[in-house]
């Protein structure tokens, strides 16, 4: 087992140690002194240059590991291909659409998909892509023209650093149906069941497109108060969250005096 330097979280702080990565398990040296078989791993999360590995039938072992990309890539590959997860061979294209713009040189990659507790992993020779379930914004079983044939695919819309990204998965129909059903079930809470009136829908569409409050008010000829009421509805339905609270101000007597004075001697 080859040893590599890593940092792990121990008792609330990060400590430097070494880790051995083997064919069927990895080992973290002191102070953790833990050996974890890949097949006991039930979840794998990725956060920038660190990963969180959850192992054990009840997820009793949680290891937060930070290291260079090369080390994490090797470790992730072993975990994804051996962990206790629903796994299938598939072709995937991720990302295929980013922010609504079709990526013209996007290619289908041959690899495997592992469905874990908190996310789906796509892994190919060259790529490792994680889609956390909480970031899934839409799932659709649809068809796509591939090599001049209409084939069934699962289309997954998900958020990545505030961008809406679309990925596609291609595999035999029976497996595709299982994947689709799983994703539908796992993301059931984010489905919209409420009736949304057309104006609220238009405001939501403009927020999606990146318009700020002033642009929305101008485009839809809404007053500040009307727009606030629509925002309230979006917040109540859980369709939006507060980014920041805009302040509207009026000048005090001191402010008015400053402006009056500045007219006499122009502001520098």
């Amino acid at each position, binding site marked *: 087992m080859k040893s590599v330097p890593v940092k792990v979280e121990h008792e609330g702080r990060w400590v430097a140690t070494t880790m051995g990565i083997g064919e069927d398990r990895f080992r973290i040296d002191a102070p953790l002194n833990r050996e974890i078989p890949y097949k006991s791993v039930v979840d794998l999360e990725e956060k920038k240059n660190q990963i969180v590995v959850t192992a054990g039938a009840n997820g009793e072992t949680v290891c937060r590991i930070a290291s260079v990309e090369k080390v994490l890539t090797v470790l992730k590959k072993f975990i994804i291909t051996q962990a206790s997860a629903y796994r299938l061979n598939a072709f995937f294209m991720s990302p295929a659409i980013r*922010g609504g713009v079709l990526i013209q040189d996007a290619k289908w990659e041959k690899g495997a998909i592992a469905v874990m507790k908190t996310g789906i992993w796509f892994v190919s020779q060259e790529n490792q892509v994680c889609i956390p379930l909480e970031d899934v914004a839409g799932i659709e079983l649809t068809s796509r023209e591939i090599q001049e044939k209409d084939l069934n695919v699962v289309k997954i819309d998900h958020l990545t650093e505030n961008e809406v990204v679309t990925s596609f998965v291609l595999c035999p129909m029976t497996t595709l149906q299982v994947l689709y059903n799983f994703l539908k079930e796992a993301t059931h809470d984010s489905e919209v069941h409420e009736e949304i009136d057309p104006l609220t829908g238009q405001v939501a569409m403009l927020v999606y*497109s990146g318009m700020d409050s002033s642009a929305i008010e101008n485009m839809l000829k809404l007053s500040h108060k009307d727009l606030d009421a629509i925002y309230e509805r979006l917040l109540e339905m859980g369709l939006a969250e507060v980014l920041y609270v805009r302040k509207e101000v009026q000048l005090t007597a001191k402010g008015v005096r400053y402006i009056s004075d500045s007219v006499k001697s122009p502001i520098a």
Partner: protein
Amino acid sequence: MGRILIVDDTMFMRTLLKNILFSGGHDIVGEAADGAEAVARYQELKPDLVTMDVVMPKVNGIEALKAIKAADPSAKVIMCTAVGQEQMVKLAVKSGARGYIVKPFQAPKVLEEVKNVLSA
């Protein structure tokens, strides 16, 4: 920055695109609500770029794209369509579209695509 013609049959989408492109410093030289109007406005305005909706009444976006490209092979057109109609991509690309935007879209990515097509 470019002179852009926006083609879409819905006022809402035209206004949205206008706002996004204007915020990116582009000049919106005209708008059209269907394919036939788009071809006429293109001949008249000679814009640097066209954003063209695919599904429109009278003449659809693909037909309008073909007519514009026939008249001006160097025309730069970005097609714009709704989710689920991505199948049109191949046809649009074959007909000479330089880029493809799927609704709903996000402003920064649209501006990036417009910039790429304009500078190509």
